[in-house]
Every structure is written in C-alpha cells, then in structure tokens.
C-alpha cells in the first residue's frame, strides 16, 4: 500500500503531497523535510530505494522534481518505479510537455489526475488512455 506521495523540487518546496494515512500537520512537515533530505543528496548511480523509518521510499528525479512514493517494506519496488513513470507520462500528456510551473498553477487538476490514478493507496487504473479520457469528461462538466 502506498502511504504517501510527494512531489518536491530540489529546494525542498512541496508541489504535491497526498497522504493515504492520517498524520498531523506538523508530522507531515517533518516527513516532507526528512524525505527531501534523504533523496536530494543521493547520487544518481545509487538505487532508487531508500529505507525511511519502518517503510521504504521509492523515488525518481524528473528534471527538477523528485517524485517520491512511500510504501510498505514488503512491496515490490520495481513495480512502483514503473507506476511513477506512468504517472509522469500521464501528466506529460495532459499538460503537453509538462513543466514544474504547470503543476504549480494547476495543482487542483494534478490532484484530480492523481485521484483517478491511485485510490486508497492502491492503483486504480493502468491505462494512460483511460485516465486521459476520464479527465476530459470531467473537464467538460466544470
């Protein structure tokens, strides 16, 4: 199960934070700070998996943004690495060559996409096409 998803830039600013477990606001800030510190200094040759408290963080850097997923110890790391990539592809498709600024100004849409992709800490849909179509339908209603 995914415990939380974080999108942070290299300076440590959180662009997206979605938690699937209950945490106080102060705890959330602490977590974000710690995860940032963990991933920002890692050499790109190292593994994409780090142990974090009693869980694992799987992260990948795309341009200036770190996409981090915190999962249970027993989960398949390589699979989640794939799901991060799928998410990035969806964002890229939706915003047409997405950049960080798109995510900042349209954060509520990013959350909507995320909610179509992952629910209750598990994968909801694996087809990029299906998610984009759904987002299109939702946009029409707005």
């Amino acid at each position: 199960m995914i415990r939380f998803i974080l999108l942070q830039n290299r300076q440590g600013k959180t662009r997206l934070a979605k938690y699937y477990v209950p945490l106080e606001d102060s705890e959330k800030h602490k977590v974000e700070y710690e995860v940032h510190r963990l991933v920002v200094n890692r050499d790109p040759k190292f593994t994409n998996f780090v142990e974090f408290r009693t869980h694992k963080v799987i992260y990948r850097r795309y341009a200036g943004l770190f996409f981090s997923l915190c999962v249970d110890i027993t989960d398949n790391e390589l699979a989640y690495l794939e799901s991060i990539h799928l998410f990035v592809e969806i964002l890229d498709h939706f915003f047409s060559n997405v950049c960080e600024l798109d995510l900042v100004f349209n954060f509520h849409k990013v959350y909507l996409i995320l909610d179509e992709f992952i629910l209750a800490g598990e994968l909801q849909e694996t087809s990029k096409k299906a998610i984009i179509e759904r987002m299109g339908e939702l946009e029409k209603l707005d």
Partner: protein
Amino acid sequence: MNPFSSGTRLRDMIRAIRSCKTAAEERAVVRKECAAIRAAISENDQDYRHRNLAKLMFIHMLGYPTHFGQMECLKLIASSGFPEKRIGYLALMLLLDERQEVLMLVTNSLKQDLNHSNQYIIGLALCALGNICSAEMARDLAPEVERLLQFRDPNIRKKAALCSIRIIKKVPDLAENFINPAASLLREKHHGVLITAVQLCTDLCKVSSEALEYFREKCTEGLVKTLKDMANSSYSPEYDVAGITDPFLHIRLLKLLRILGQGDPDASDCMNDILAQVATKIESNKNAGNAILYECVGTIMSIEDNGGLRVLAINILGRFLSNRDNNIRYVALNMLMKAMTVDAQAVQRHRATILECVKDSDASIRKKALDLVYLLVNESNVKPLTKELIGYLEASDQEFKGVLTDKICSLVEKFSPEKIWYIDQMLKVLSEAGSFVKDEVWHALIVVISNASDLHGYSVRALYRASQTTTEQESLVRVAVWCIGEYGDILVNNVGMLDIEEPITVTESDAVDAVEVAIKRHTSDLTTKAMALIALLKLSSRFPSCSARIKDIILQNKQSFVLELQQRSIEFNCILQKHQNVRAALVERMPVLDEATFSGRRAGSLPTSVSTSTGTAHNIPNGIAKPAAAPVADLLDLSSDDAPAPSSSGGDFLQDLLGVDLSTASAPPSASQPPKGGTDVLLDLLSIGTSPPAQSSSSASDILSSIQDNTASLANLNGLTSLSPLSANGNSPASPAPVMDLLDGFGPSPQKNEENGPAYPSLVAYESSSLRMSFNFSKQPGNPQTTLIQATFTNLSPNVYNDFLFQAAVPKFLQLHLDPASSNTLPANGSISQSMKVTNSQHGKKSLVMRIRIAYKMNGKEVLEEGQVNNFPRDL
C-alpha cells in the same frame, strides 16, 4: 461587499505569492488572503466559495494553518453543482483526515451522493470515502459501497472496489459481505476493474481466513487462466509498457497467486505452469520486465516446493546480481535473504558475488549485502569470509564501519572454531575499529583470554605488540592494559611461547612504559586511565623492582579532578606504602569467570554484570535495597563483603522515622558522593564508622570526609578484588546520636547465651577510673565464626550514671550485632549488661578488634569515654 473579498483569482494569488522575494513578504500576502477568505466565510459568501477554497488549498500546501476553512468544505459538498462538489471533496481530502471529528458531519452528504443519479458525483464520493473515511463512516456506508460494486459503469465499479479495501481495513468484521461481490469481479475483462478486484481480494485474504479459503477453492484456476491469457495476448497499445501488456496487472495477479498458493500444495500445483512460463518468457532488459520477474521469483519462493521452479528462480536472482543496474542488484539481495530459508545451498554458490556487493559504493546495497553475508556464514566458511570482511573494514567509511564491526564481532563470537583464531580476529578488529566495538564485546574478549590459560602468553604478547603500533583505538588500549597488568610476568619472562610466535623481549620497565603511556595520553578516557592505574598496582606486585617508579606514576594522579582517579590513586598509594604485606594477596591473578555463566548472563542481562569480571568495576552498588522498615539491627551491620548497605533512601527514612536531629556531625550526603553515600550517612548517624588508616586527625569534619572517602574507596577495592579489603582500624567520634535509646525499643530478642562450644576466658575490655567493661565469650556450636559476647559494665564510682549508652565500631570484616542493655541506668557500684554478637568473616586469619564509646550522665554532666579493645583472644 468588502472590496478585498475574493477579488483575486486563484491564478493571480499564486503569481503574487511566487513573486515574493522574501519569506516575510510571502507571509504578508498569505495573511491578507487568509483575512479576505475569513471575511468571506463569515459573510457566508456563496459566489466565490469555491475559488476561496482553492486558494485555501494552495495556502495549505505552502504550509500555513487553514483550519478555519474546514466548515467551508462541508458547505461546498452540500451544494448541488458538480464543480462545487468537486472542489469541496478535494479540499476535504486535503485539509481533513480521519481523526478529525468534523468528518462525521460529511457522512450524510456522502450517503446522498453515493445514491446520486450523476455517476461522476458518485465517483467523487467514492474517492473521498476511499481516501479518508474513519471506522464509523465505513460502517455506516458499507452497504452503499457494496451495492456499487455491481454498478453498470466500470469506473464506478473499480472505485468501489478500492473503497471497499479501505472499509475492510478499518472494519475487518465487514469482510464477509465483500467476498462474493469480489469473486464475481474477478471474472471481468476490463483491466481497471480487474486490477482493483485483484487488490481487493488480496486484502480480503489478509484480513479474513474465510475469504482466503473461499478464493483458494473457487478462484485459483480462474486467476491462472487470466494470467495465461494476458501473457499470451497480442500487442495492446493501451496497456503496453515496454513490450509487455499491462505489467501492473501481471504483478498483482502474481501477488494474489502467492497468497493463495502459500501453504497449499494443490493450489501451488495449479500455478506451476504459468509461473514457469512467466519466468522464462519475460524479457528482462527493461524495468517492467524485471519487476514482473522479481514478483514471480517471490511467488515461487513462497509457494509449496517444486524443485525445478526453485532452481529457475535462484538462477534469475543470480542473473540479477550481476546486472549493472543498482536497483536490480538491490532487489536481488533482498530476495536472496528470503531464499536463504528455502534453499541455503543455492545461495552459497553466489557467495563471491555477494561479497563483492559488500564493497559497493551504494550504501543501501552494502547494507543489504552485509546482512546477507551474515546469514551465509557457517562453520566451514567463517574463516575466509571473516578475512574478507576485516580486510574491507579498513576501506569502509565511518557510518558503515560501526555496522560492519558489529557484524564481524558477532560472527567471530558465534562461529570461532578455536580460541586462538578468535583472539587474533578480535585483535585485528580492535586495531582497525576499536572505537566502534561495543563494551560487551571487549569484555567478552577478556573473559575468553582469561579462560584460555595456555594462550595467556600469546595474548599478552600480541596485545603488547599491537598497543605499540596502534594507540588511537581506545578498546584495544584497555584490553592491552588489562592483560599487561594481569600477565605482566608472563610477558616479561616469555612464558608459554607458541611455535608461531616471533620472539620478543620485553623488560619490566617496557611493560610499565606501555601502561604509563596509556595514562599519560590526554585522549584516554576515564575507563582507560582507571584500568591503567589498577594494572600498575598489579605490576608493582609482580615487578618489585619497578615499585618505586610505579608509585610515582600513581601519585601523579593524586590531585586529579576526576574523583575516580583520585580515589584510586590515593588508595593504591596507601597500599604501596603501608600495606605491602597484603599487596600480593590483593592483586593475585583474577579468578577466572566461567564462560558459560558469563554468556548466559550476558544474553539475559545488562552489561553491569560484566563489571565483576574485569578490572574496571565502577562499583555499581545496585545491591539489595533493604526495605526501609527492616529491623534496625541491620543498620548496625557493618558488613560490606556482600551487597552494599541500604541506599540513602533508607537512611533518610530512618531520619524521618526517628525524628532525630542528626545534623551536628553527620554531613548530609552530597550529590557528588558515589552511590555508597547512603552507607556513609547511616554510619555517621549511628556514629559507627571506619576511618582511613593513614589519618588520625580528630576534628570531626575531617574524619567525616575521610570516612566517606574511605568507606567508598574500600568498597571500591571490594569490587576490584574478591579478597576483603584492609582492616581499617579506628573509629570516628561522631555526634552522640541518641538513636541507641530508641533502638532499645526496637531491639530484637536478647541473645541467648549458649555455653556450648569452646570456652574462652573473659576479658576486661576497657577500664577507667569510673567504669569497667568486661566481656564474656561464648560460641554457638557449629558456628565458629560467630561469637556471643556478654558485656558487663561496672560502675566504679559512687555516683549514679544515667542515660548510659554503649556504642561499638568494628572493621569491615566483622559484623556486629548489639542487643539492648539490661538498663540505661548504672547504679553506683552496680553493673548492667549488654549482649552482642560478632561474626568474623576472617575467622582464623584476623582476630577481633573493636573501638568503643561510652556515654553517660553523671550528676547532670555529660561524660564520654572512648577506647579500643585489642586484646581479644586470637582465635575468636
């Protein structure tokens, strides 16, 4: 309407915040916006509610508090339009979580929305429910979600499935209701629904064993078929990732099959084919393929044994291990650890590669590899493996060194085939990374050395050599110092040379040099210096020629600011100066601590137990805390060989209990006193104490401080050797504590004077012009150490003595037990008697000796008489 309220659009606010140059500016902008939003909320502004909430969400993401917006979410959710509901639910998920009580208010809205005609709104509600519902909400809304599992739209079905996962996690009892619907979902074709259904089944199996049974029976074949179809399916652009159709679904199916097959041979049989197919056909040049292979290997390892499959799996792992991609190697190491339990032989084959991984530059890989190596070690390969690990110890970086040292030490301890190898390896580790070695480990090393009597010579010589070359490793220095102290004579005389050793000449002064260096180094810490002092004392006995030099070195610490060192220095100096006769006995070879009991104790307890085996006993008197209400006679016990006397809390209790003002000469225990301070207070209270042998000053405060010094230091000596400390003569004339009177009331039953046993002549213990005290002795049969003394006080004057008080003090090797006197008033020319019992732990070696103090009132005047009784018969 307030001109500021909701004027700015979301985009503009974001732009404004981004253009701020400093944090203070940003705070100002945010504050203004929050004020505007709050104003709008209090005015119940409908039009811009949803824009305000979006702004609030952004502000929340920046890290500012936004609690005032929570009710707004509810209002938005309750409105009828889709856009409002959408922002409302989004904000709900962001600003609230299941622990807030406000969430309960949403339940009703959720229920209505779950029954809405617009399926997008149903979707919103399911999403919110699935992400943040609490247990009560789950229970309330479970029936709705169940119903939605069979909705006509697949999007709703898949959301409902994931929502159900959360529900059964929060309320496991409800799991039964979901079994059937979940099973029917497994037959779907839509990938989205299928993957969510598989996840739902996985979680159901984890939560309820009934579900597990059901799925195992009914669904295993169906799942196998689904996987087969997918593996054999043709290219599908929608789900294709790197040439594989929907790897995510592959992985989920494999995971579910693992749970179903675990522990059940039939189910496992069912899946063998497909597993073999997946394992062989999937290409592993892309991450997606590797992810599937990884999951497949995991499944093969967990289900019931099929030899061929297992071999296949281990081969895949072996391939992974040599992959250049770090991720792959990491997961391979991970899986190999689990494979150890299944097929250790196969894993051993890859030992060399794993050892290489220990030296990898990536910290995660190193750690995993080290864990794996630790599991791989057995009796046959421990020597080469340890050699490799120790070799790497030099090259490793600081954080890894600690972990590596730990592992090496436990390996060496568990598997060492012979003692000499153990000592060698430990020496190497200590030389390399002594600062990382835990205390227990070098304590254990000392125990082993002391037990291996034929290796004493070898060890001490090796340690001597090592300490000459490496001086920074604290633990090495400590062990070396201890050994040189203990076995200095063996070192100098080259006793017990083994064939493999090179000859080495060490003179006595060289040995003393080595220890002196340890003391003088300013980087040595307290433990090392303390150990060095004791080692010097031992050497002074073993090398009498160096005695004078050693004394000088010890004296240098006499004024040390550290209490421990000062104490030791003074005590040892005393021994060297005045007590040469006992010195040899004091510093004999340490009694060997039995290894079995040591390791047993160590396994079960804290390191404090180890302190007795080494020379570093910081005498931690966690002794028997005698209950405060214990018979007061205990307080008169001056025993010290066994547990230390009652803690200071006992002493305070006594003070309270007796309400006695004991302040005059008894100094209150200061905080800096060693824990034995409690004993000292009590001893002072009852004006029974022992004074240091060297001092004879009569001023009370001096003696008090020296009492505390000495009793503590004597107690310390106690811990260091198993022999009793010096006989400390002397007594302190402390304040007249009228405690004795009260003790009369408490006193235990008077001694019965048994006349059995050898008779001893009575003795006039003390005589002055006004008073005579005589002792009659008897011993109980079969108890030669205990003497019963009947003391008779005779008034030699024509005056009556009132408030008669007799007090006695004995050295530590004696135990004194005073009974109440027959009366407090000594009539003129009359006498009274008092019984006492003395137990001599040094019976036969030392005779009794006692200092006495007698106080009484004569004609209203207080009289005090003191003396010492030295003329006890020798064999008491």
